[in-house]
């Protein structure tokens, strides 16, 4: 049986892993290559590296980082942050990333999903969505771009469905409301998206304990759970999370 995945997320800024709350107040969490290797050794199923500065200067740094990680880590990892073109996807995949994630570029030019899928297969193309609860319409979420700084009037569920048709192979769904709060994932959001699409949804934003992971899988319909704060700052080991889930009947790769 296919197991549910535990995915530590490494937000990278100036070659360091950082973590904030609601996308703000960043704390240092270590060296990305070392941390990536440690998580891989600890039994993480996958890793996500996000270049949260995503400037022209940081592009070169992130390619070098991917090369270093790929020499040391033999589990899949996704790279995202500031990817603008199929050529940039190509460079990162060639450097050793298994998947690339796009967010702002796909909103501005949805065809990038189709082109990427045609070239690399849809399993390589992750659509990252930063979702914020709509203040005006309860039960709806709006897509935010540019690292969450710019809200759009695009509905999250509709965007996810469209992206699947275009060629996205997976959705990395971050709740901006829950991010870094450790109060649990937004499972209404996760459920709304996971029941509307047939591709895997990675729940992201809000993990604070093992129950939250369980809830995202069972209530939110997530195929994978992403976390940062609770692993970076030593609250739980990957193994503790997997053993907890396994004891509650969730299939995991232990």
């Amino acid at each position: 049986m296919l197991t549910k995945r535990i995915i530590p997320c490494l937000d990278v800024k100036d070659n360091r892993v950082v973590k904030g709350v609601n996308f703000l107040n960043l704390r240092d969490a270590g060296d990305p290559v070392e941390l990536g290797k440690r998580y891989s050794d600890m039994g993480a199923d996958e890793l996500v590296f996000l270049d949260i500065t995503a400037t022209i200067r940081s592009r070169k740094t992130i390619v070098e980082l991917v090369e270093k990680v790929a020499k040391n880590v033999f589990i899949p990892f996704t790279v995202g942050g500031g990817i603008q073109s199929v050529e940039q996807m190509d460079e990162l995949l060639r450097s050793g990333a298994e998947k690339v994630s796009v967010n702002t570029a796909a909103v501005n030019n949805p065809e990038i999903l189709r082109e990427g899928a045609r070239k690399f297969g849809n399993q390589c193309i992750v659509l990252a969505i930063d979702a914020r609860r709509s203040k005006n319409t309860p039960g709806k979420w709006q897509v935010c771009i540019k690292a969450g700084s710019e809200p759009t009037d695009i509905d999250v569920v509709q965007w996810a469905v469209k992206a699947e048709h275009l060629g996205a192979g997976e959705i990395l769904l971050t709740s901006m409301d829950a991010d870094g709060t450790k109060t649990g994932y937004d499972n209404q959001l996760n459920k709304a998206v996971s029941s509307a699409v047939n591709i895997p949804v990675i729940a992201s934003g809000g993990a604070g304990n093992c129950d939250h992971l369980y809830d995202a899988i069972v209530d939110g319909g997530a195929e994978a759970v992403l976390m940062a704060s609770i692993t970076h700052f030593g609250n739980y080991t990957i193994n503790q999370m997997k053993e907890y889930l396994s004891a509650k009947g969730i299939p995991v790769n232990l």
Partner: protein
Amino acid sequence: MIVIIDYDVGNVKSVSNAFSHLGCENQLSSDPEVIREASGLVLPGVAAFGYAINALGGLSEVVKSVALAGKPLLGICVGYQMLFEKSFEYGEFDGLGLIKGQVIGLPADKTVPHMGWNLVKLPADMDLLKGLGSKKHFYFAHSFYADVKDPEAKVAYTEYGFDLPASVQKDNIYGCQFHPEKSGSAGLKVLQNFVEICKKENCDVD
């Protein structure tokens, strides 16, 4: 020397990194001479089938003739799918036809792509999967799969609503739908097994 066929697809570097990590000499190449001289060949592939088979171009005949002459060949993911006769991913494309079967879409009643770690049952008589016990988790990421129709092929399966072929072996031709280069220590063991197969094969020839 193991040669990883370098033909403009995604994961060639990852495969090379994994062999290097094992201390195995390896080379990325698209030179037919180098390919003919190899002790074993790896055909990697992170790409859509049509893109990959076109990118392989004239090398496909070289790979085919070398494999038919008995040199160990390991196909990974789309490289594995290309070992078969035909694929229907975004169109209809001919594969290398080394193993009988077609590459078709996964049934839509499950989440597609089949993405993540799935448990593979390991038959005792498949050299590539030796030393790993009776079952292990490996990392998969694909939307199409090979419907193996070759009576001469040994097949290891995983379960995804049906028995999904995860690895095949037909004489000197080996393939994995999963990514051994991304499947942690179990995956590295599979690559180590391939290294051993190549060593043995070349000693026998000498």
